[in-house]
């Protein structure tokens, strides 16, 4: 029979998308149940607001502007997700992405406000800062056997406080508020250029070339992982460290290089947000920014595929923004975090969902063989 041709449900792409859709639907369903428990009357409307986000605006112009804001925040999220995705392919769980993101924000803002550098240099600063932090985790993992998850979490907190310390300096912090200075006044050359993209979104100034840059980064990550010898070596290290060493690869170097690249990606992500002047750093922050953690959600929802991650990042950012639009007097906006949390939890079951999709087919095939065998037995 046609054993070479896989049935529709068995194709890996279809399975990945199917599993992601199951996660999303279940996540939204549970979110809806929670909303109904708080206040059943507006629950349906609230869940639709979360889901539709910018579509709920009244005019097309306003919709475009809101879409622009969501896209501006999708770029950094995508970079964090790529960071997690890249490292996961090499068998490393980069939960240090939020810390690398903080380091990137710190370096970018410092370069922009204290050193008065142009945007492309600020971006480099951010990448290097993130990479350095990644290197710390990598070296600890490769040479001292410290689990990258634990070191990542510790570094997230350490970097948060370092950032607050560095960015509290006179040159960076606004003298009247706990936030960093406004880039458009202090150093306009440090703002990432819009190149006319903003005009497409009703003149939204937050829309810059950072968005296409992030998408290009996703494609580059995909090419490195799937089409280069370097990527193959990294993946081999992830599958089997001992095997990679036996085959002559430098497994320790590979671990460190992976986390350096992951760190640089997350660091760039921060530059892509803070250098658009959309938000400012709060120097009294006491919690690690959620961007890096949402990156983990986007990665797994994207089926650990850099291209899938683009869409997943947009979805996660969109429901996060949608969450801030619901009626705050009735529902807490953190309901979106809850939905993303549930989605990541369900992503852990992806293997199980895929198994179910393949099992039905396998069962039928088994039955067929059995009946054929009994027939043969009867003939003999």
């Amino acid at each position: 029979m046609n054993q070479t041709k896989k049935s529709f449900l068995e194709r890996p792409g279809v399975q990945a998308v199917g599993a992601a859709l199951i996660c999303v639907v279940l996540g939204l369903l549970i979110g809806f149940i929670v909303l109904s428990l708080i206040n059943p009357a507006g629950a349906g409307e609230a869940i639709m607001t979360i889901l539709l986000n910018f579509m709920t605006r009244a005019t097309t112009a306003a919709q475009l502007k809101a879409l622009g804001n969501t896209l501006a925040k999708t770029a950094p999220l995508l970079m964090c997700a790529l960071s997690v995705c890249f490292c996961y392919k090499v068998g490393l769980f980069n939960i240090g992405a939020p810390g690398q993101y903080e380091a990137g924000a710190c370096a970018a803002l410092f370069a922009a406000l204290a050193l008065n550098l142009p945007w492309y240099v600020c971006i480099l600063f951010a990448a290097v800062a993130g990479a350095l932090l990644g290197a710390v985790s990598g070296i600890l993992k490769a040479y001292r056997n410290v689990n990258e998850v634990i070191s990542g979490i510790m570094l997230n907190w350490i970097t948060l406080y370092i950032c607050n310390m560095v960015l509290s300096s006179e040159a960076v912090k606004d003298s009247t508020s706990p936030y960093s200075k406004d880039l458009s006044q202090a150093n306009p050359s440090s703002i990432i250029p819009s190149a006319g993209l903003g005009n497409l979104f009703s003149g939204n100034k937050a829309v810059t070339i950072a968005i296409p840059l992030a998408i290009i980064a996703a494609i580059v990550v995909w090419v490195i992982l799937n089409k280069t010898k370097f990527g193959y070596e990294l993946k081999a290290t992830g599958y089997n460290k001992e095997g990679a060493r036996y085959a002559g690869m430098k497994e320790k170097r590979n671990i460190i290089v992976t986390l350096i690249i992951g760190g640089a990606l997350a660091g760039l992500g921060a530059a892509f947000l803070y250098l658009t002047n959309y938000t400012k750093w709060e120097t009294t922050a006491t919690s690690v920014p959620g961007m890096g953690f949402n990156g983990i959600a986007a990665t797994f929802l994207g089926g650990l595929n850099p291209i899938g991650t683009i869409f997943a990042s947009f979805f996660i950012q969109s429901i996060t923004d949608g969450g801030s639009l619901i009626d705050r007097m009735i529902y807490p906006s953190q309901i979106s975090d809850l939905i993303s949390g549930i989605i990541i939890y369900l992503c852990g079951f992806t293997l199980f969902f895929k198994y179910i999709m393949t099992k039905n087919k396998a069962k039928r095939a088994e039955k067929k063989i059995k009946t054929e065998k009994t027939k043969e037995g009867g003939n003999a």
Partner: protein
Amino acid sequence: MMLLAQYTIIFASVLSLVALGGCFSEHSGVINLGLEGIMVMGALGGAVAMNLFPSTNAFVMILTTVVVAVIFGMIYSVLLAFACINLKADQTLIGTAMNMLGTAVATVVVRSINTSTDPNNVSTTLQYVDQKKLFLVNINGFEFNWFMIIALVILVASYFVLYKTRFGLRLRACGENPQAAASVGINVYKMRWSGVLISGFLGGLGGIVYIMAGVSEWKFEVGVAGFGFLSLAVMIFGQWKPHRIALAALLFGFFRALSNVYTGFDFLAALNIPSQFYNMLPYIISLVVLAFTSKNSAAPKAEGIPYDKGTR
């Protein structure tokens, strides 16, 4: 000085409780990275219990708070057990999801409670000023907290259970070599479920102790500030052994306490180091300690690997 000792001991109690939780889970073969989330849920349970069932009797108040916190922690740990033991999901991923989910759930619940009592109150903070006083006994300026005794009792009990009982031996066997354990008739699934549920019990308890350690109100948006992970560092530094965990917890607790009380010491205040540095200190110490102790780790051999009956 008294204050430093008091904070050191209370933080050490939290760290040892949660680290022991991680210890039980890992000895059974399941890495519990969700301890942070479990702590948040325990804290939520305890804080809600104190708010909904306030009592003036110290014994009743302590009992209800502890029981509710522990139940919340255990129920939440079922998420980990079901996903990682029955569905063989990635333990790191599930743990991370639980941490994110824990803070989100707690925030949503607390906000709903606040808004339902006062429609204009959209904060995520719960207060327990009067209730907290029932937990404390003032002995010559040292604020003794009943949780300290509870932590000590649990520490001794954990040592006894892990090393002196049949259950402990079997639990550890499942973490070292589940196939060998199964071959002599031990139900590995049941053992791992017990390990995770015990970690839920201890993590939940640790959570409520943590949020009552220094303050009388808690903003649930911040979760438990990486304390679950600090506890894991304590557990690794303690080489998965209760008596060493206790010592490690005291060391880490001391540095955590410093950030609360350093202004009280003239020579430390004179150094003029920013407060942010003291906040960083416990995390830096744990990184340094881990760098020097992880090389020869005594981690259970089969931890992190889903048990599959089919593989022998």
